């Protein structure tokens, strides 16, 4: 793995000047992932903030070949690109020694929800491609609607906190584990706050022969109601509180990548700075924090067991 100094000299495949918000986690995720290979890369994205903000015709922020097709089919589209590569290579139309990498991006809406089938299909078929979900916990592009990745209790525009409702009633779906159940060569969960871990995981994912999946915690200041400059810090808190554990599954081997020596920090530290959890801190709503904490604890214990950690 390269040092940060070496990484800083690498070519940027997603250039500045795109229209993503200040403090957006998605562009950080994409840039870190693309540092994971020196090979030529074809990238794709599902409809969402990333696609809309990086390709306002006639401009593009992509310095590498890029395709956007629709919302639910980033994986299926890239599987076709990879299929074309195999065919054209077999027919001698692409030099035998030229190795192109393929990466499809999608937001949590395009991945956990509407695009889950197409992702599952592409992974099952064994395409040599990486799929990266930038998880910001809601449909941000369309104005912060809840998704299968929205955490328990978070207020979104379709799960608002009101007189009766207390944000999203359901817990989030554990997509990373669903992907691990596909028994593909490489699955990982990462966060933009832990750049070394993320770039390292991207390197491994690009290197394996077959499908790989990385789920990246990518906070959204607009949707989370956090200050722009807090993005990396809040992502770090997601990891340190155990809300977003860092781990990887390499050929079926589960490995926890971050174990706080002094134990997890209380989830309250992650929830408090975020406006989407404001109602948790109203008098009488303490049970919401408790419920959130108990969900995190349960998942953490389960994951530790899977990873063989005491």
């Amino acid at each position: 793995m390269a040092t940060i100094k070496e990484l800083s000299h690498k070519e940027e495949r997603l250039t500045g000047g795109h229209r993503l918000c200040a403090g957006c986690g998605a562009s950080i995720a994409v840039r870190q992932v693309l540092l994971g290979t020196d090979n030529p890369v074809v990238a794709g994205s599902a409809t969402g903030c990333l696609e809309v903000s990086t390709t306002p015709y006639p401009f593009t922020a992509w310095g590498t070949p890029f395709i956007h097709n629709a919302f639910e089919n980033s994986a299926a589209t890239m599987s076709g690109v990879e299929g074309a590569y195999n065919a054209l290579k077999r027919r001698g139309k692409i030099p035998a020694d030229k190795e192109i990498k393929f990466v499809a991006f999608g937001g949590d809406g395009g991945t956990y929800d509407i695009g889950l089938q197409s992702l599952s299909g592409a992974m099952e078929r064994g395409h040599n491609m990486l799929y990266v979900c930038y998880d910001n916990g809601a449909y941000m592009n369309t104005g912060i609607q809840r998704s299968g990745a929205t955490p328990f209790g978070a207020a979104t525009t379709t799960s608002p906190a009101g007189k009766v409702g207390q944000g999203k009633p359901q817990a989030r779906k554990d997509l990373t584990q669903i992907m691990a159940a596909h028994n593909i060569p490489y699955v990982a969960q990462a966060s933009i706050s832990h750049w070394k871990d993320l770039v390292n995981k991207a390197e491994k994912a690009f290197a394996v022969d077959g499908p790989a999946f990385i789920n990246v915690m990518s906070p959204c200041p607009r949707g989370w109601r956090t200050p722009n400059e807090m993005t990396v810090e809040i992502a770090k808190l997601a990891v340190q509180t155990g809300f977003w554990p860092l781990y990887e599954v390499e050929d079926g081997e589960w490995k926890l990548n971050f174990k706080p020596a002094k134990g997890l920090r209380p989830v309250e530290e992650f929830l408090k700075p975020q406006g989407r959890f404001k109602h948790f801190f109203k008098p009488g709503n303490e049970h919401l924090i408790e419920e959130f904490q108990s969900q995190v604890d349960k998942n953490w214990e389960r994951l530790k067991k899977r990873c063989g950690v005491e």
Partner: protein
Amino acid sequence: MATTANKATTKQTTVAMTGNAGCALAMKQINPDVVGAYPITPQTTIVEEFANYVANGVVDTEYINVESEHSAMSACIGASAAGARVMTTTSSQGLALMWEELSIASAMRLPIVMHNVNRSLSGPINIHCDHSDSMGARDMGWVQMFGETAQEAYDNTIIAMRVAEHEKVMLPVMIMHDGFITSHAIDRFDVLDDEVVKKFVGEYVPKRALLDTDNPMTFGPFAMPPYYYEQRKAMRVALENAKDVVLKVSKEYGKLSGRTYGLFEEYRLDDAHIAVIVLGSTAGTAKYVVDKLRDKGMKVGLLKPRLFRPFPSAEMADALSHLKAVAVMDRSDSIGAPGGPVYMEVKAALYNTTKRPHVQGYVYGLGGRDTGPDQIETVFGDLQKVARGEEAPREAVTLLGVKE
């Protein structure tokens, strides 16, 4: 305009095969780079047959067995944008599931060729033939070609590849034949040698490709009001160009095969007073009826559209101008509209012309309801009365063969 038989300039083999097997054979002869497809009745035997070609190394196509038709078209779009020659095939619900992707494929100007083996749309669910599936996709920016027989399904497949990839078109092409009637019945027809087809379709050299990593390009960007409209205009222009290209490629194909297709086929139309317009396999039944009524001295004829998109309005208006009355038979209903899709196109094509026949609309055969010669005779009977002034022209659409 008409389909003509001329002398073939290359050797052909007569085969006995289903329409679907003929389509799979044409795909084999084209040997596309990528096929991404999903099975659905009555298309299934095409994907199965093609899978056999792959399994036996007869083709070296990358065959992507996707998990849905939405992903089939998505993968085809990815593969075509990557720079590959791409084919696929579907029917009915499969085409409906692809709907979102159809207009993305055409807007990205990707020359994908797809069979749509015609089947009714649910509900109720039904596996038999009507044209509602492809008619539902008529505004998607695809070239649409209908075939009557297994021979036409085979020939159209090969022609379609050239049309799609023509630099003045660069649009996807959808080729139709009737579910079960043409897809599953064994028919006798002539096929070209593999080498001849290979030469005819030539090599596909894309002008822009995602896999050209030295020239990175963005496909599928976000276009706001200042740019979107012009993209759509470019699609209209390209689709209109397809008319000449279809004729040109069909002519070239006709030289080889002895079968030269036009935009539509005219059958005993020249001196007819009344005529029926009908797509697909029912045209075969209608020809039989035309012959029968001609034997009785009636001046009847037939026009069978081949190209539905772009619709050959001017050419058709010209071919119909001498008639007194015309019946358009639609194997799909445009519910809530004055009549079926073909009826509306024909009427629109004639409206601004000075010499034009009366046009009467019929819907028939929905969900595979049998349409025999007697129904078509009834239609000619109606037309004859209208032409003689014995009956008032009908404005409302007539549903043929439906139970009260």
